[in-house]
Every structure is written in structure tokens, then in C-alpha cells.
């Protein structure tokens, strides 16, 4: 156990699995699979496993996703790390191929593959085509593909282990705004389930549900509300598909108040699905939904920070729900 950065935790998981599986491959562009952590050995997958298995490709995300899928279909565990600039370019391969092939083949196709898709949208000044948090909605909509989104280094490692070992294609969303997070992460391999939400706090007055990049603001608002005497059940979805309906329903049955928080665009954001599932199962609850407006993120930090959901916005909405 040591305090580890996000990327060190993830690469530690991958390094272990690659040592066990002598043909497992990793494809990347731009971001070499290298991480260091104070007092620990540098992890450099390219150096350790060589360019045949760890390949620095051109800027072609169709290739990266296709090569990952094709490797999987040929029986090879494959992971690709697609930086945020290209996380929509690979959509066709994942949505229309990876998501459909098992079903199309009557259950025959094997796809032990992971698409790590980096997301931005947390950083003021990036703007336009360099702000693309909304892919959580797009990928979670696809049948046949698991779509997960860890929000802590510890979950990032455990969910990476589970994703690699899963025989289904997994879209593993990486909210890059959380790259500076550091926490205690076990050295051993461990699995974190790909279908369970996490209760971050328990309380009886209000359920707040978020995921990925919205979690730090959710937890900050939760802390402030609890200090004010409000019992908050903060839930980190962790998996968008499959979605852990049971945990959500149980919580709102108790609190009768549900607030969802997303950095994704308002229309069809993960929170919309959360509210729909709860509303189908819980009577007499009240709801509010916070999300980024249905507008592309502008460059100006003044505009962007006004639009990006934060702890103050969550506090305001929570008070209106409680009032």
C-alpha cells in the first residue's frame, strides 16, 4: 500500500496483467504508457514489453480501436489508450462492431478488450473540439459494451483489472481532469466490480448521484451539506452500463429526494437515466438534475466556469429540493 497517482495505479494493474498474459497488447498514440511514483519503480510498458506488444501508432483512432477489436476477436487480450482528441473518432468500431459482434455471431465472438477513452471538459480554456466530456452519454447508450467511469485512483486500478479480465468489450472512461488525484492504493491486484455503484456517504435526507469528473464537486457539496446537518447519501455510479439500479432505488426509497450531477450535456446525461430508473421504482420522490448546458464548452474561463456544474450549484439545487 502506498499513495499513488491515477496513472501509476492504472499502469500497475496493466503491467501485472501483461506479465501474466504473454500476448496481451497495448496500443497508444501521444501518451506513452509511462508512470512514476515517489519511492517506486518507474513503469514503462513500451520498454518492458517491446514495440510488438506495446505499439505507438499514428494519429488514427479508427486503427487503434479496430486493432484492439481485431486482436480480441483473434483471442488476444488488447487494451488501447485513446486520448481525448480522438475519443469520438473510434465510435464506429465500438458502437457498430464491438457492441454487436457477440450478438451477431450467436454468442461466438470473444472480445477480451478495453478501450480507455480519455475525456476532457474539466479544464477552462480548452474549448470546442478539445472539450468532450459528453462521450459518457454516447458510449453508455451502446448495447453489448460495458461502459465504466472510475473517479478515484483506487477504483481506477481495481476496475482496470476487472476490465482486462472481462470477456466483454469494456469502454473505460478516464476523466482526465482527475489526473492529479493521489490516494492509498494497494500494491496487489484486486478486482473492483464493473456493475456496482459506490456509496461514498450515507444519510437519510437526500441522495446525490454523480460519476467521474463530477464526483469531487459532489463530495465537496456533500461535506458542506452534512456540516449543515443534512444527511446525504452520495453515490458514485462507477458503471454507466450496466447501471446499478438496485443501489439507486434503495437509496431514494429512503431519502425520497434525488439530485443528479453531470459534467455531460443536460439532454440524455447519465443523470437522466438515473432519474428514469428511480422514478420507475420509487413512488413520491422529488428530483433535480444538474448538468452542463446543451452548449459546446466555450474557451473563456468566465463563461466556462459559470456553465460547469460545481459544488455551489449542487448546494443551491439541494436546498431547493430540501426546502
Amino acid at each position, binding site marked *: 500500500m502506498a499513495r499513488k497517482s491515477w496513472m501509476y495505479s492504472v499502469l500497475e494493474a496493466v503491467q501485472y496483467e501483461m506479465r501474466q498474459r504473454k500476448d496481451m497488447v497495448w496500443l497508444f498514440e501521444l501518451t506513452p504508457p509511462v508512470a512514476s511514483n515517489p519511492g517506486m519503480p518507474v513503469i514503462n510498458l513500451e520498454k518492458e514489453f517491446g514495440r510488438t506488444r506495446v505499439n505507438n501508432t*499514428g494519429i488514427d483512432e479508427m486503427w487503434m480501436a479496430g486493432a484492439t477489436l481485431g486482436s480480441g476477436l483473434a483471442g488476444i487480450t488488447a487494451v488501447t489508450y485513446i486520448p481525448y482528441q480522438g475519443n469520438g473518432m473510434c465510435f464506429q468500431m465500438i458502437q457498430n462492431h464491438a457492441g454487436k459482434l457477440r450478438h451477431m455471431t450467436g454468442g461466438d465472438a470473444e472480445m477480451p478488450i478495453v478501450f480507455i477513452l480519455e475525456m476532457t471538459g474539466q479544464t477552462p480554456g480548452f474549448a470546442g473540439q478539445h472539450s468532450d466530456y459528453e462521450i459518457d452519454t454516447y458510449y453508455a447508450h451502446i448495447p453489448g459494451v460495458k461502459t465504466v467511469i472510475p473517479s478515484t485512483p483506487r477504483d481506477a486500478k481495481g476496475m482496470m483489472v476487472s476490465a482486462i479480465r472481462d470477456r466483454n468489450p469494456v469502454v473505460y472512461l478516464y476523466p482526465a481532469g482527475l489526473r492529479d488525484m493521489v490516494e492509498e492504493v494497494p500494491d496487489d491486484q484486486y478486482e473492483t466490480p464493473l456493475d456496482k455503484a459506490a456509496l461514498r456517504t450515507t444519510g437519510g435526507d437526500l441522495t446525490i448521484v454523480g460519476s467521474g469528473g463530477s464526483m469531487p464537486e459532489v463530495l465537496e457539496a456533500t461535506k458542506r451539506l452534512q456540516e449543515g446537518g443534512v444527511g446525504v447519501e452520495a453515490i458514485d455510479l462507477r458503471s454507466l452500463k450496466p447501471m446499478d439500479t438496485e443501489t439507486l432505488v434503495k437509496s431514494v426509497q429512503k431519502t425520497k429526494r434525488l439530485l443528479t450531477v453531470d459534467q455531460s450535456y443536460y439532454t440524455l446525461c447519465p443523470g437522466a437515466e438515473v432519474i428514469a430508473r428511480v422514478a420507475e421504482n420509487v413512488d413520491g420522490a422529488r428530483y433535480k438534475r444538474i448538468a452542463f*448546458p446543451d452548449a459546446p464548452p466555450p474557451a473563456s474561463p468566465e463563461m466556462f466556469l459559470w456553465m460547469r456544474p460545481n459544488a455551489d450549484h449542487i448546494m*443551491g439545487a439541494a436546498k431547493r429540493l430540501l426546502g
Partner: protein
Amino acid sequence: MAYESDLSRDSREDEPTPSTSRRTFLKAVAGASAAVSLSSQFSWANGEIGYWAKDLPDDKLKEMYATMLRIRWHERTQADKMLTDPKYRGYNHFYAGQEAVATGVCSALRNKGPFEEVDLVYSTHRPSGHALAKGVDLKKMCAENDFRATGLNKGYAAEMHISDKSIGFMGADGMIGPGLVMAAGSAFGIRARGSDQVSVVFGGDGTYATPAFHGALNNATLLDLPFIYVLENNLYHQYAHYSYSCPMKDIADAARTYGIPGVVVDGQDVLQVYNAAREAVERARAGKGPTLIEAKTYRYYNHWGAPGAKPGVLGAFGYDPLAISSFRPEREVRAWLARDPIDIFRKTLINWGTLDQAKADAAEAAVKKEVKEAFEWADKQPLCNPEDGVKNVFVTGSVRAAQFG
């Protein structure tokens, strides 16, 4: 440098020998301007294509020189600002080192006139050079890069996304690939309109590996579109050498597949770039189809921002934490700095008598003043109104502020 002598040799092998008189003339230019090596400093006529630069009036040549200086001093001033002014929020993917490419190409285009007549330029994530060469207002660009409400795009775009439709600068496409197809698409539209406009896209060596490379060139060739693909090969896409993504040394070789001209030019020589661009523009306007121009060039700074750079010093030689495990050799950076496109052009213009040392110095001083004033103007511009973030999503109205629940 091995690469430069190879470039010269290949070109001589591929093309008819230029006339003796022209070669003598060029050697004279080379002799006058060579500071590093004879083979790498001369401006040469590129075989079959016309040496159009010989016909350029002095005013046009001086304007091209000023454009290159404007790009250079914008970059240097902004890099210094990023390094020294903690309050400055702007950033850039610096273009310094590649000035001759943007200037040479845009000097061969129609940059003024009604939108239905002006030539179109699609840019990249490294757009400030293309923008200034096309004629974007320097002050407004500085304001935009610092997120000001009175900036080129009212603070919505910033560096990787700037555009100015009024002069046919269709915008920086921050992604790798889509810009090529959009530009070819504009050429498709232009052909339907029946105007003699051309559509130009700038792209880096990294674009070769994208499916869009083939999509754009294949369709532009099939339809004889007025499309010019200017591939700026600065050797690195992001942090990787282009040999990681392209099996050829000259990416222009790919043009043979489509049966269209694929021209390699020395991207440090603005006149060579201009000659190739002029040829491509005339071909495109005449309905004869696309051209692929590969300009061999180099960026003096790292991929993004100013890591490894020092205030007041051109270029970045130091550590770039973003490069993680792949670094550009310092000696490679210095070797390219030794054949700086602005020095080369300055020497040529002095040799031709277009400028003398004093006039060249005065031109530089005037541009430095202009750039300084532009940044000062930008500094005083108002910040954006936060609520405007939900405007301009559609033609009219604004979208709901969903962040408050």
C-alpha cells in the same frame, strides 16, 4: 544536415536541369546568402514549375517579409509572456520556424474580396501563423487567445479554434484529419458554385496516418476539385517522429497513387513554397484538380506551449514534461535554427536589392512595435460575460442554463 542535401539531390534527379543562366543566378544568390553551407541556403527554381517569385513586385516581397516577421514576433512575444507573466492565461501551439510555409502559400491566394470569391484556408491546432498569413487581425487574435470578449471569436474559440470567415480563414481544426475532408468538401461546394476559388488545407505529418488523408485526396482527385493540401512535415506529430506513422521519407510520394502532383519543397524557403503554391493554385483554378505540397520544415518550440524555452531566447531546447519518453535532440533543434526561414529570406531580399540592411532592420522594428501594441491592446480588452456561454449554439436564442438544477 543529411536531410537537406538529400532534398536537393532528389529534386535534381527528378527534374529537368534548369537553364544554365538561371542556375548561375541561383548560385550567386546562394553564395551571397550562405552562412552555414552552400547546399542548404540557396533559393532554387523547382524544375518544371515556373519560378514565379521572379515576377513578384518589390512591395509584395516586402509584405511577405513583414508577414513572416509578424508571425515570428507574435510567437516570441507570446512565448515570453507565457514564461514571465503569471497573470497571462493565453497559450499556443507555436508555429515559429514554419513561417515560410504559411506565408508562401497564403501569398499565392486571394485573401480579399466577397466571401463567394475569396480563397479558403483551413488551419490546424498550430494556427497563429496560418491566421496571420491569411490576413487575420493581429490585435483581435491576441485578444482571442487571451479569452477576451472583443477577440476574433468573442472568446468562444481561443488558440486551437480561431477563425475569421471574412477573409476566408475557415478556422483552426484542432483535430487531426477532419480538417482535410472539410476543406475538400468546401472545394466540392466551390465547384458547384462555379467560382474560381480554391480551398487549401494545412496539415501536419501526422495527418498522413489518418483515414482522412486518403478520403480527401481520393475524392478531390476523382472530382477534379480545386483543393490544395499543404502538408507541413515538421518531423513530429505531437511527440512522435513521423517515421512512427508513415513508411515513406517523402509523404508527397503518396500523390502518385492518385496521379496528381506531389511536390516536395524546402519549407524554410518562402519563395520555393510560393512557387509551388502558385502552380497548385493555377492548376486548381483551371479545374485541373488537387495538388499535394509537402513542405519540409521544423517547429522551434515543443508541441504545446513553451516548456523548455527561456524568456528572450528563440526556441525550446530544454525538458518537456509532456513528451514523457520521447524528446527532440537539442542538436536537431539547433541545426534547423541555423537555417532560419526569416534569415534566408532577408538575405535573398538584400541580395536582390529589394531591401538593404537598414530597411530590413526597420521592417523588423516596425513589426516588433506592432506586435507589442497588439498584446497591450489585448490586455485591456474586457473579459467575457459568463451568461453569454449559452448563446450562439443555434442561429437564434440561447439554450437553458442547466447547471443550477
